[in-house]
């Protein structure tokens, strides 16, 4: 098999391993790092699929910005050490089993897919190139693009609402006011 296949398998295994370690590792910071590994692997897949733009964005936005944000929060709360008390085992097992069952069911449902003859074009096809994407984005997809700005606005307002300290909080009055019901 050619380099593409080798790379595909390598990246896939890497991604899955990373994902598993994200879930299992005790130390949150390790989780973050493993998650970054997963992202990198996925970006690799994008490149294999010749979607360079997404690959880059994925690295910058996710592995870059978002993950840093996570780390930042961890540090802020200094949860860097393994502080999480263990959930009771049975719930853990139940969780894993359920996840696995979901996987099984989905695979079972999809293995007979009529798409199984289909193949994903590797390496070729320049739809993933930035100029094509840009053209389509700012031509056909301009409306959703604009609308997503509303999303950001609301997110921004929201963060302000939540982040801003109110006088009461400065006095640190915490409790179950009636407004919670």
């Amino acid at each position, binding site marked *: 098999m050619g380099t593409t296949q080798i790379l595909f398998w390598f990246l896939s295994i890497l991604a899955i391993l990373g994902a598993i370690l994200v879930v299992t590792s005790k130390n949150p910071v390790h989780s973050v790092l493993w998650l970054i590994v997963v992202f990198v692997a996925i970006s690799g897949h994008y490149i294999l699929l010749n979607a360079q733009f997404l690959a880059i964005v994925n690295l910058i936005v996710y592995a870059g910005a978002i993950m840093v944000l996570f780390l930042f929060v961890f540090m802020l709360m200094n949860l860097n050490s393994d502080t999480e008390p263990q959930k009771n085992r049975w719930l853990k097992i139940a969780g894993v089993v359920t996840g696995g069952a979901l996987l099984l069911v989905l695979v079972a449902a999809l293995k007979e897919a*009529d798409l199984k003859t289909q193949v994903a074009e590797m390496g070729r096809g320049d739809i993933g190139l930035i100029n094509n994407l840009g053209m389509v984005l700012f031509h056909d997809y301009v409306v959703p693009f604009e609308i997503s700005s509303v999303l950001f606005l609301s*997110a921004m307002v929201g963060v302000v609402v939540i982040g801003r300290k109110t006088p009461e909080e400065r006095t640190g009055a915490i409790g179950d006011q009636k407004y919670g019901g």
Partner: protein
Amino acid sequence: MNAIVLSAVWGIVMMFSGIFTASKRAIRNVAVVGLAILLVVNYLDLLGHHLFNIDVHKMLYFDTFGILGNSIAFGSTLLYVLLSGRDMERVGDNLAEYFALIFFVLCGVTIITTFNTLLMLFLGIEIISIPLYILTGSDKRNLKSNEAALKYFLMGSFSTGLMLLGIAFLYGASPTGTFFIDDLWSGKAVSPVFMAGLLLLLVSMAFKVSAAPFHFWTPDVYDGAPTVFTSFMATIVKVSIFVGFVRLFDEAFGESRERWQIFVAIITAATLFIGNVTAVFQQSVKRMLAYSSIAQAGFMLLALLALNGVAKEGIILYAAAYSIATIGIFAILIRMKDYTFEGFNGLARQQPVLAATCTIFLLSLAGIPLTGGFFAKYYMLSSVVATGHFLWLVIFSVLCAAVSVYYYFRVIQAMYFKEGDGTTETEPGAGFKGLLVVLAAIVVILGVCPQSLLSQLTKMIYTW
């Protein structure tokens, strides 16, 4: 289109209004004006006058069904703000931001009532959800509020993940690789991938309208959120998402309904059962209303199951009747000293007007004739009966409706037949009472001669 743009714009206006004026009243008035404007422009849309001619590349499709849904959303929001606007001030001192968020939510509402591609659906849902996370947690001093916000956020984004996976599958299964809902289905045999996508989408939407067994966030979030915003979530948001829900399944999967009706039936039955039965034992009226909203969702799901003309008329009517009644009840609830059933004891002595209107709203929710709720339920039932299948579900839902009487009437009993000094925190003003009476009048009118609304509906929905 008018509504989308203006609601977004007005959201920004609200943001700045907070900077330019400190007077709460002024801010509220700005919001009211905005809502009024929204109503108007939406009506213009209905008449076909579009202020903005934007080429949406078929990503949005403005039909009467959606626009009607919008106007109900705007209308009930207007009533809601008029009734409970003052109570927002007591949540926190970011009144302007709250209003801004509400307007953003409305923007999302207008999107999901008129979306034509899964992308817009996704964006709409997100634009609705994110402000709601915030509003839920807006009572920052309150641990319950925080908890509710975090729960809502975690589960909400989890369901977003499910929805996205579903969308991905549908995209994969679509013959031409598109997200436009009307050519998702090849029209040939339903492929497993398509089915998987459909189910995941069903699940995530069911989550948003809090249908069992994906309803678990609802009681906690409705209970934990500041009551004003609970009212908003439980009525306007939920109802609009329902409009989107129906729209999605009608447009995208209408032809293949034979394949998925059974799943909707299962979910409906579960929702009706859990919602109604669990509500029976609640001690807090607020939480009871949360469960009742689940139960009501179960009834609305009947329309999704039937997906015929009757169902579409019905869902609009149900939206109106349910929102108005629930807004009214919440508006009264907010004013109460004590949220438990005992808190309502003897309210009829202290506040006859409140008690009377509250009774009418409750009767409407219970679906007693002469209230809008009756025709709403009537439409839901008859839509399913019209399909000729699932009569067992109809009868089951009727039994559940009988159960629902139990908890709605507990409130009535408390107000009228129990001795007690249940009363409001502050003497409600004449305006408030007047507005409640108006709401009650609307409910009754909807119940006696819904013709005015209905004839219009039938005209539009069948011409469309």
